[in-house]
């Protein structure tokens, strides 16, 4: 088991961190930023196998990157596109993988196991899909949607051109101001069946990898929140003393640090399991969402509260982290579902 980053991973982190340093989460999706992220840094192809033009890296590297994009609250479809790349890697599709790796195309995903009422009557690779997806992350910005669709032989992953006919995207007002969602209604929308359905096992593995990827982003949100409030506690004065000198603040920050240490350990472990120990992945993935999702929200909440009144203002970034933490906590379902999955895996 490997819980410590290697030299290459640390360099990757430094590169991404320095690239993101100048960006503000308030700027919305900036395609030119993504062009450089995908081009210079090659991040859209990070985990795509080399045969499809990617870098062939693992979840460990993706986790390093998502921790940084999470810490920066990078707006736009970065996570969605990464999840799509994960899904595509499970049911390899050369055309789409190559396009995503080269940054020519941005994809997003609908929730995989269940959660979708999409149906198709077709039996071959092409499919006309009907149904409604109430919430799809970054559907407004993505080119292609990957969604599980029910057909005669079970659930298949289908790629749907979001700009195509029969697709209606309606932007939603979301809590998280840095990540958009849209309703997607499909009425005979043209799609392409990926892999060799039924692909229950591949989709199950994809779901577990989503859990790890999201936990990595949450780790970044936690870390940035804690760093922000620790920094503030060193410069903000009340009653003639820096607020960080009061145990009321200091001890809470210490507890937040403890959560961060444990969250990082779990994320490193889950990413290692994804790359090196597939048998441990399901339990590690459920653990990651069960622990890190909650810890991230608690840290982001307390970081906002400890800022005092200024943390409640629109202009301060604290609420962006708080809202992202809540949105992330429920992104893959109500938190109890991860705990239930873990209980099942432990055969409790």
């Amino acid at each position, binding site marked *: 088991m490997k819980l410590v980053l290697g030299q290459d991973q640390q360099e990757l982190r430094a590169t991404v961190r320095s690239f993101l340093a100048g960006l503000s989460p308030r700027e919305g999706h900036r395609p030119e930023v993504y062009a450089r992220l995908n081009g210079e840094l090659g991040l859209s192809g990070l985990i795509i196998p080399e045969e499809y033009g990617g870098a062939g890296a693992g979840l460990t590297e993706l986790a390093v990157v998502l921790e940084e994009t999470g810490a920066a609250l990078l707006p736009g479809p970065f996570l969605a596109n990464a999840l799509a790349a994960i899904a595509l890697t499970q049911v390899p599709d050369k055309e789409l993988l190559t396009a995503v790796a080269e940054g020519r195309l941005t994809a997003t995903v609908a*929730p995989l196991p269940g959660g979708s009422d999409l149906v198709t009557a077709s039996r071959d690779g092409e499919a006309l899909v009907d149904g409604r997806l*109430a*919430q799809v992350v970054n559907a407004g910005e993505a080119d292609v949607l990957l969604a599980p669709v029910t057909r005669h032989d079970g659930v298949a992953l289908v790629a749907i051109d979001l700009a195509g006919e029969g697709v209606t995207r309606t932007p*939603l*007002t*979301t*809590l*998280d101001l840095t990540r958009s*969602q849209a309703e997607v209604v499909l009425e005979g929308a043209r799609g392409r069946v990926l892999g060799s359905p039924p692909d229950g096992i591949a989709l199950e593995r994809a779901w577990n990898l989503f859990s790890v990827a999201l936990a990595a982003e949450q780790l970044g949100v936690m870390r940035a929140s804690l760093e922000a409030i620790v920094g*503030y506690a060193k*410069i*903000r*004065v*009340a*009653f*003639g*003393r*820096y607020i960080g000198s*009061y145990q*009321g*603040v200091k001890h809470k920050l210490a507890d937040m640090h403890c959560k961060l240490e444990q969250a990082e350990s779990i994320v490193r472990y889950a990413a290692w399991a994804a790359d090196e120990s597939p048998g441990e992945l399901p339990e590690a993935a459920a653990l990651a969402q069960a622990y890190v999702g909650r810890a991230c*929200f608690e840290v982001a*909440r307390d970081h*906002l*509260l400890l800022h*005092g*009144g*200024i*943390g*409640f*203002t*629109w*202009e301060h970034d*604290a*609420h962006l982290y*708080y*809202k992202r933490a*809540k*949105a992330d*906590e*429920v*992104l893959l*379902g*109500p*938190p*109890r*579902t991860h*705990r*239930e999955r873990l209980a099942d895996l432990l055969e409790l």
Partner: protein
Amino acid sequence: MNLDEYRSAARVWLAANADRTDDAREFMARLYDAGYSGITWPKRWGGQGLTQAEERAFAAEARDYALPTYIFSIGLGMCGPTLLDRGTDAQRERFLRPLLRGEEVWCQLFSEPGAGSDVASLQTRAVRDGDGWVVNGQKVWTSVAQHADWGLLLTRTDVDVPKHKGLTMFVVDMHHPGVTVRPLKDMTGRSHFNEIFFDDVTIPDKHRVGEVNDGWGVAVTTLLHERLSISAGVGMGGGADWLARLREAVDTGDPLVRDQLVELHIRSRALSLFNQRLSQETRAGLFPGARGSAAKLLLAELTLYTADLATSLVGPESVVDEELSHAISLAPAMALGGGTNEIMRNIIGERVLNLPPEPRVDKTVPFKDLKVGTQQ
């Protein structure tokens, strides 16, 4: 008229008048004419000269109505009582009756970006200029300032003495051209408060409240009244409402969901029974004092807990549900406004449990040498 008769009369009047208008000023004027404005204030200044008993009786009857008196709440709850306690007769004569009649709206100007929990470290300066004063600085977290005619303003008038000893209180004309009111957008995306900028605002000395450099003593009076208004408002905790809403929205057949709803019920009952006990004690003449801070702290925690629980139970849909999104965005407000949770715990520790205070580094240093606000 005994208390029961008073209560009956109030009930009749409210039934006939409470829903007749949305116009706040017009309604206040009618309230005043009917004798329900300033119930405990002295008759000399436009009040009714009655007791807390009548005031509570009227409030109890009024609870069923949404009276449009919000914009007057700061004036009636804090500024007016401060003038009654510490103003000059000339000030009382000039200001109190128009307030009670709904002719003039008041706001309170204490907090600053660099002085929140620690209000006494404020930096807005008032400098003598002939017979008056010139004010420069910035205030924040000011309710109803956009409607206000007058503000109760706490300023620094001496930086060479410790922070509590160089403050002076004034009444400021909010229509003065040097006063700029800017809505402060909060994390819900709405503007419940304002920022106020003072740019060479002049104030005549007759609008000074209390002695020069005794502003902290005056402010303590105001803050005491503020605490009373807040603890009177506490008890409306939303736990029970959310329980009702959630039991419809989620699957109570899931034992884990059911247990979470039980927990919400337990916490909200615990707090509401505590609030009811405090009320009963107050009615029995036992003033709760700082124990009210426990109710405020618990409400702040319950509010955060409830919004968090509701969104967690509902899951992904909660981030696109307007009501739930607003609830989770508003949830921190109670923990930050009217004293943070940390301040409440200090109050409970020091004034209820009588624990020893922290060593204070800021009580003896001249203000100009003191660290304040945000700095390296």
